[in-house]
């Protein structure tokens, strides 16, 4: 699989934190920041997160590479919202049907900061999480059903094979003489056909894998043991506490600044 998807072997404390704690921390921050769309809560959270980044166990290069999608998504969202977002307050700039107002600019800033404030901890925490360890944690710490967790984990391993299959299917279509059509209609039809072929292949791969797993006793009613212990430790509580603290400070700051606006309200 690609370099960007493989987990980083993190040095230091973060490498020993339970993946469940990382998941919990990411969920706490996301939920808190998605409750309101205002620049203050996202901005405060982002500042605090940036201060914590040196402890994330990622090199600057890894950090840049993995957060790259955010640095593309956030500015695009800012520009789009500023130009086309709901207009409110003084008009700052206008051309044709595009109007930039104080309101749309405010909203743009709030959304841009939010993408970074939710995205960065999510990406950073999962960059150092091995899927197998996460599955161990979900099953042993959170007591989720083993069949469900391990089925998902085994399925994840097939994703790499699907990438290879997809490339091979594209080459085969060219070789079969059916890859010429130009324009969006032909491209869509070709993509749909290729996606269906991938679906057929993946079902076949999946059922073979299921047979191999069943032959190793997976899915029987016998109680299962776990070769790798996953426990909740004090450092997991610390990480979760930090996340709760960051979320609390951000929300409090927004409320005090009178910027807090509950999206559900």
């Amino acid at each position: 699989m690609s370099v960007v998807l493989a987990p980083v072997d993190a040095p230091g404390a973060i490498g020993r934190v339970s993946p469940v704690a990382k998941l919990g921390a990411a969920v706490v921050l996301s939920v808190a920041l998605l409750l309101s769309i205002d620049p203050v809560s996202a901005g405060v959270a982002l500042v605090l997160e940036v201060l914590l980044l040196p402890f994330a166990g990622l090199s600057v290069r890894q950090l840049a590479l993995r957060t790259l999608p955010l640095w593309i998504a956030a500015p695009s969202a800012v520009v789009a919202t500023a130009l086309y977002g709901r207009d409110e307050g003084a008009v700052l700039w206008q051309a044709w049907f595009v109007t930039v107002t104080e309101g749309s600019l405010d909203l743009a800033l709030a959304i841009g900061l939010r993408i970074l404030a939710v995205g960065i901890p999510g990406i950073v925490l999962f960059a150092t999480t091995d899927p197998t360890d996460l599955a161990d944690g979900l099953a042993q710490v959170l007591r989720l059903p083993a069949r469900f967790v391990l089925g998902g984990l085994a399925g994840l391993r097939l994703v790499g094979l699907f990438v290879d299959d997809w490339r091979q299917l594209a080459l085969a279509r060219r070789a079969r003489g059916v890859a010429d059509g130009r324009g969006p209609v032909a491209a869509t039809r070709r993509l749909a056909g290729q996606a269906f072929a991938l679906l057929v292949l993946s079902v076949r791969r999946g059922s073979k894998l299921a047979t191999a797993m069943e032959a190793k006793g997976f899915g029987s009613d016998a109680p299962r043991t776990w070769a790798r212990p996953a426990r909740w430790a004090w450092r997991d509580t610390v990480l979760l506490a930090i996340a709760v603290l960051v979320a609390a400070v951000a929300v409090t700051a927004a409320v005090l600044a009178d910027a807090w606006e509950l999206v559900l309200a």
Partner: protein
Amino acid sequence: MPDDARSPAASGTAGGAGGVRPGARVVAHGWGWRHAARHAHAVRGLDLVVEPGERVLLLGASGAGKSTLLAALAGVLGGDEEGDAEGTLTVDDREPADQRGRVGLVLQDPDSQVVLARVGDDVAFGCENLGVPRDEIWPRVDAALADVGLDLPRDHPTTQLSGGQQQRLALAGALALRPGLLLLDEPTANLDPAGVVEVRDAVARTAAATGTTLVVVEHRVSTWLPVVDRVVVLAAGGGVLADGRPDEVLVAQRDVLVDAGVWVPSVPAALPARRERPADAAPPAPLLRAVQLAVGRGGRRRPAVATGVDAVVREGTALVVTGPNGAGKSTVALTVAGLLAPVGGDLVADDALAAGAGPSPVRWRSRQLLTRVGTVFQHPEHQFLAPTVRRELAVGPEALGLPAEEVARRVDALLARLRLAHLAEANPFTLSGGEKRRLSVATVLATSPRVLVLDEPTFGQDARTWRELVALLGELLDEGAAIVAVSHDAEFVAAVADEVLDLAAHTVPLAERHAP
């Protein structure tokens, strides 16, 4: 059962897996199975007893139900909704489904058996499912890895294993269960010669050391003769056709086995009779030239897998590319086929082949490839596009814009030539391995390309399909087609190749594969 003197590695260590439980006893009595969606039984009227510690090679024609029997013994055939069983089949006097862990199963396809991302975890997986205590799991894992000769750290990524290593990993996963019955379903069919020997020797060593009962299904008999002490041949119509000592069965049932596609060691691989080229004839015309060609996936900015390849593809001539797994053979084939852009150097089509389409095959339109270079992929499933065999064959000719009568004429001729007529309305995905291979070759022949590129055409094929394929390629060469084939099948190389390109010397080591 005493250790067999013919076993090549009877002195194996088999540390953790050693002789804890004796081999299992298998009894089939009037046993049969019919898949829910089929009319015919996959197996019927089977009476068979395998004593503890026996090592059985299970043979039979495609469709005789060998894999069905193994799946049933492994307890993974499914319940009543999957099909109907008749008679009885037991492992140590109990239903196979109640004997999980007593039975270990290794399948043909290495890709589809690895469950977890790290080598140690993958071996431990079965023990976990069976509820083996944690303290006991890791010693078992280490012992199983040692038994199969997989000298890797527990956290080695399973994605970075060769085919032979993956199959030994699957074997270790089965051995960690400490099975009394070990079932191997064509475990070496998809491996290169080195991988075949690795896996075979690991099986021989552990079977000898643990005394487990062994049942192997495999077409390539000679590989397994040193390991097994009994051969059972299933009859296509149900029941057992022959059963006894390997040397006796192979002699007595020679013709039946040859007909069933089994590689009988005393029967040499048939070489096709090629037309003699007159001594004074002009040398065959070149169609494609590779000049210091470097290949890789993803164009000039991606790392090369193999470099400095010089070769000329000529009409009526077969060029076979060989080399170990991972040497970049497939990448070379796909590049020569005009599907991947060269990473460096040049691939140039001569005017005779290009016919106005330009010198660079990768720039040709998809339709222009059809009459110039046809590609048979390693896995036929990748190239199937249509819901029936007949329509699959029509795809290429229709893309060329041929009139309907001409399309029908070509399709009918190919259905007959490749023995697919009775399957014309079948879905390509439901065909057997040999039928899929024949169809994938036929789809390419439908547009009569001047160059035929084949990626491991004999991979996993039985002897009958192999013979047909080799004969067909001989005919095509005589008709003037050029062939580029990737293969590590020594007999195929001997039968087909006019020229051999060994890629080993051109391969870029894994550690040095970074972008220029």
